[in-house]
């Protein structure tokens, strides 16, 4: 039985897409756990599978995708075996999600107030007036000025940053325990992004929410997350506390990625980008997915799929999927 202290536990998740080109293994053996109240970052480049992980948790994988195997435990209950009627109750009210592009996630023909109200009423039996009060309270909580008037506005009357805040208000209105955020700041300016990230930290403090934050920017992970999992080609290749992973990265990919960031003071030196490209997820070779691009590759790396090894302590795990750290194999998923 999974440990009761984890609010979310993913074990051996595999989500494949059956396309005409072949079977695209978007998520291939992903396992991790999230403690209540923590912010876990899922970091990776595009195509690494991070959004698919999020959609798998909520069982929103579109055709031709299919969750092939694995288990997802939310508060101890297994989600993949639940009937659709129960999932409907979980989505929004227990596990909420905010998306990358606010323009296509908000309905342009309804006021934002109406959208929040209908979301509230979908999960609770409350009157329209009560729901509207709650909606105004949420809009206020995300620091949108003049909330009583703004609930009657349409999405095009808001700027990008405000639209994203409306999305948070929408997600929060059903008081979920867990919030999944899929790259919500991609389209935002840096000063607006800063406001947004600070808002997320405040909301975590106020509501004690658990947050699964998906991002391709390590800088955001550094500011926001307690722990971070790095994804490559559908697998987690490193996971640990954000201090460990970003300050002393173990996996060659993580190291290479961190080195590719132009950071202040880099002008005199040269960035060394990682050579090559990500593998085609429909034609994955045996062995380490990163091997073709890795400067430290060894013959064993291509022989068989690589397992997860523990390089940290029992309380503060730092898992790495790399033969360079062959030693203590990670048995229990609980520590991930």
């Amino acid at each position, binding site marked *: 039985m999974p440990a009761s202290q984890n609010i979310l536990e993913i074990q051996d998740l595999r989500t494949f897409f059956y396309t005409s080109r072949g079977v695209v293994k978007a998520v291939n053996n992903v396992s991790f756990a999230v403690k209540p109240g923590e912010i876990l970052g899922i970091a990776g*480049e*595009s195509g690494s599978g991070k959004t698919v992980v999020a959609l798998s948790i909520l069982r929103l994988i579109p055709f031709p995708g299919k969750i092939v195997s694995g288990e997802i435990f939310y508060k101890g209950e297994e989600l993949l075996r639940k009937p659709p009627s129960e999932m409907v109750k979980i989505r929004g009210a227990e596990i909420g999600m905010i998306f990358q592009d606010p323009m296509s996630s908000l309905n342009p023909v309804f006021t934002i107030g109406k959208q929040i109200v209908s979301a509230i009423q979908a999960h609770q039996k409350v009157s329209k007036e009560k729901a509207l009060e709650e909606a105004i309270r949420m809009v206020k909580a995300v620091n949108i000025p003049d909330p009583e008037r703004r609930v009657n506005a349409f999405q095009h009357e808001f*700027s*990008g*940053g*405000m639209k994203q805040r409306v999305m948070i208000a929408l997600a929060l209105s059903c008081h979920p325990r867990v919030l999944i955020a899929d790259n919500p700041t991609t389209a935002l*300016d*840096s*000063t*607006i*992004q*800063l*406001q947004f990230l*600070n808002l997320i930290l405040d909301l975590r403090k106020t509501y004690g929410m658990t947050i699964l934050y998906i991002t*391709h*920017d*390590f*800088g*955001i992970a*550094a*500011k926001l997350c307690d722990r971070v999992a790095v994804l490559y080609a559908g697998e987690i290749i490193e996971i640990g506390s*954000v*201090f460990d992973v*970003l*300050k002393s990265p173990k996996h060659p990919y993580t190291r*290479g*990625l*961190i080195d*590719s*960031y*132009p*950071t*202040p003071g*880099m*002008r005199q030196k*040269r*960035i*060394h*980008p*990682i050579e090559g*490209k990500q593998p085609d997820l429909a034609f994955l070779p045996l062995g380490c997915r990163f091997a073709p691009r890795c400067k430290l590759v060894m013959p064993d790396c291509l022989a068989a799929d690589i397992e997860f090894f523990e390089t940290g302590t029992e309380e503060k795990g730092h898992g790495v999927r790399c033969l360079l750290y062959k030693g203590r194999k990670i048995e229990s998923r609980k520590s991930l």
Partner: protein
Amino acid sequence: MGFAASYTKVEKLNPENLFEVIDLSKFFPVYGGTFLKKIGEVRAVDGISFQIQKREILGLVGESGCGKSTVGRLLLRLIEPTTGTILFEGQDLLALPKQDLLKMRKEIQMVFQDPFSSLNPRVSVGQTIADPLQSLKLEDHQAIEKRVREMMTIVGLDPSLERKYPHEFSGGDRQRIGIAAALAVNPKFIFFDEPVSALDVSAQAQILNLIRYIRDELEITVLIVAHNLSVVEYVSDRVAVMYLGKIVELAPTELLYQTPRHPYTQALMSAIPTLDPEEARKRQEIVLRGEIPSPLNAPSGCKFHTRCQNFLGEVCVQKDPPLTDLGNGHFVACYLVTSRGR
């Protein structure tokens, strides 16, 4: 016009400058109401002046609505300016007749932001790269073939892929195709409009190194526009910061990043994400209040005064601060900075 005295007079007609921009403005009228009358205007670029020296990489940063993309397009004359002067190699660009304008396109090129929409999906990549050579009637068929392959090699693409179509390439490679097309005519100047914003970190790094190569080895002058300050710092020699159509600070890169003077620049620097989690939690952040004002209703006087953490008072609301020389090539438009002295 106070800036003219402290800024442009000395640099005017300097042969070392590829571009000289004087008091450039672009206003877009906005129509509305039942009779579609002009109800206002967007001052995308509002009277800016600067130079681009030969073989330098000038970075232009700012957030949405600051006008940086418009500036580049004005230099290419893809958009016509409302007022102002643009000198290219000493010649008045805006006085050029139509025929000569096409010839100028050989010298002044552009690379676009979105690798997914800036390539014609029904034209092979080889043809896209050959296109500028053909439309400017520059060379014969064989020479063009050779040049296309040469360009693909320079930007790091396999020349044998020239008959493939854009959708068969990754974002980073598509960006390379766009760069190859710009390089094909051997221009003197390339304007890069947010070349890496749509790319992953690893592709981003590769393209940035390519841009440095273009200046270092091919000796092409570059204007790069981006909203990511770290990207701009890595490639640029000098950086200009824009806000709502105005240049608020301009300085050599090290100087700007070590000692930013304008409050907006300081806020921007503070918003650069650091990869060090300890620093991210410890450092003093300047979080600006409010949103970026709409360019339709730009604040009076100093456009930044509504969000400024160092707001002085009446003087900031009355008149727009001029871009003032602080020495060492560092220019700032702020009453607080100039009144305090260096």
